[in-house]
């Protein structure tokens, strides 16, 4: 067992060796090194073909038409393209956007930018289990609402929203609906028709693919309702300029296909690992599971440990690579805004840890992690002067 044990799969996943092989085949002179835009010669056409094959793979994975996939540099760009693109395109016609308080920073910061540009943004507060009620969405819609953006799987808690119900509410009123599914692929079966989304953000590096590539699914009817973010050269339906990175795209395609093949058996395995970890850790007492217990993906367990300070907890468990609060922005050390939105107080939010695991996680690692957590929490609680006070109070 290699230390630290990596339990931060929601932040990023290692690339699967099979995916890495596909990528390696698209780099050097003896591989597919051409520019996919150079369709006038064989090396370029080979690259184009690899790109189109990957497009078909990703499309198949979400039940979409290959022509509706736009490659991006990741889910961050996909979120920005969806939100800024849809809102700016309709600047004249509507001025209101609806999103939620527990969305990813890419969505929240894009919406904050819209506010600076003069749009109105409504941010819905989920209930304490982290779920929005479809009804909330309906009530938030106004005559001038252009776009609703609600994520499918929360990256901190693993909570799954009822995307189909939200999409229905939007479609009834002709409002574009975007969902960030960066944490969904490989964890849930995705089908854009069943979900009814107009725009869906995907990322490769949460599914054992490479960092720096993602996609935006754009329903045909929404295609002409988006303004691009990047101009120049007209690739990707005119919605996204830039040389297509063959190895990245081929890697994403391979990663999605692989994840789909393994989805069922892997889900069962992860449920077992999660229950094992949760069972061992909850015995400590005063441990709270953050987020709805039923509607969640198996690979994420977000726990708040009463009576211990977060930074010390992390340091005491440094044989585990886990994260506190928001994963993608550890730069900002404040308590997680997601857990605060779920009603956790600052102190508890700070002593919350996200354990996330996946394809390469073993039972041995989970058992080691459980021991680590129990030892760290017990020791820190014993060190704390607050414990008695709490017990007494």
């Amino acid at each position: 067992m290699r230390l630290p044990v990596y339990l931060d799969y929601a932040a990023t996943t290692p690339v699967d060796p099979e995916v890495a092989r596909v990528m390696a085949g698209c780099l050097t002179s003896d591989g597919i090194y051409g520019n996919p835009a150079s369709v006038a010669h064989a090396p370029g056409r080979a690259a184009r073909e690899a790109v189109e094959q990957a497009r078909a793979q990703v499309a198949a994975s979400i039940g979409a038409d290959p022509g509706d996939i736009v490659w991006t540099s990741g889910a961050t760009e996909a979120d920005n393209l969806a939100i800024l693109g849809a809102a700016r395109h309709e600047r004249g016609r509507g001025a209101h956007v609806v999103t939620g308080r527990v969305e990813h920073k890419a969505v929240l910061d894009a919406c904050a930018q819209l506010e600076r540009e003069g749009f109105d943004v409504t941010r819905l507060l989920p209930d304490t289990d982290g779920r929005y009620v479809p009804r909330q969405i309906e009530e938030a819609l106004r005559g001038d609402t252009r776009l609703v953006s609600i994520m499918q799987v929360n990256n901190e808690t693993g909570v799954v929203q009822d995307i189909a119900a939200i999409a229905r509410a939007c479609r009834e009123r002709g409002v574009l609906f975007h969902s960030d599914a960066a944490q969904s692929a490989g964890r849930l079966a995705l089908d854009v028709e069943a979900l009814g989304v107009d725009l869906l953000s995907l990322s490769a590096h949460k599914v054992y693919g490479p960092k720096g590539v993602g996609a935006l699914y754009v329903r045909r009817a929404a295609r002409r309702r988006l303004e691009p973010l990047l101009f120049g050269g007209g690739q990707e339906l005119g919605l996204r300029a830039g040389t297509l990175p063959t190895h990245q795209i081929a890697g994403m395609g391979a990663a999605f296909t692989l994840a789909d093949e393994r989805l069922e058996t892997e889900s069962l395995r992860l449920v077992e690992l999660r229950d094992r970890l949760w069972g061992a850790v909850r015995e400590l007492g005063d441990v709270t599971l953050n987020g709805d217990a039923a509607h969640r993906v198996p690979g994420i367990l977000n726990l708040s440990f009463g009576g211990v300070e977060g930074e010390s907890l992390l340091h005491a468990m440094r044989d585990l690579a886990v994260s506190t609060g928001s994963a993608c922005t550890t730069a900002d050390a404040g308590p997680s805004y997601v857990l605060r939105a779920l009603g956790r107080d600052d102190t508890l939010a700070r002593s919350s840890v996200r354990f996330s695991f996946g394809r390469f996680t073993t039972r041995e690692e989970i058992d080691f992690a459980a021991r680590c957590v129990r030892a760290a929490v017990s020791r820190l609680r014993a060190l704390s002067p607050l414990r008695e006070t709490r017990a007494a109070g």
Partner: protein
Amino acid sequence: MIDSNYSDAVTERFDRAPHAGGPGAEAAGVGRAGSAADGAVVEISLEIEAGRVRAARFRAFGCPHTIAAASRLAERIEGRAVTALDAPCAAALAAELGVPAAKLGRLLIVEDALAAAVADFRDRQALPATLAAIE
């Protein structure tokens, strides 16, 4: 590799936490400072003999720097005269343990806890004397 946020000295103390413990039966002064909302609560307890610290213990809820500093403080005041405990100690602890400037606030909490323990000790000393004076 970019190193962690903790010096070796901090980590070593954080792991072993020498001098950890709640006030014993012979504690002559106990002080606390900080709050959970501030992210750190430190408790220092002192056993005093002939005007000197015979033993010092700490408990702490806080970051590794807080725990390491409280532990080091408890260790270094043992044997000192109570009168010598009034001098500020946060800066010295920070320097010795390699605590970053951003964390100095936490070390002031440690300093405050010691000051509170000394004050508690003096209060307890003063009380019998006051009572005697009334009698």
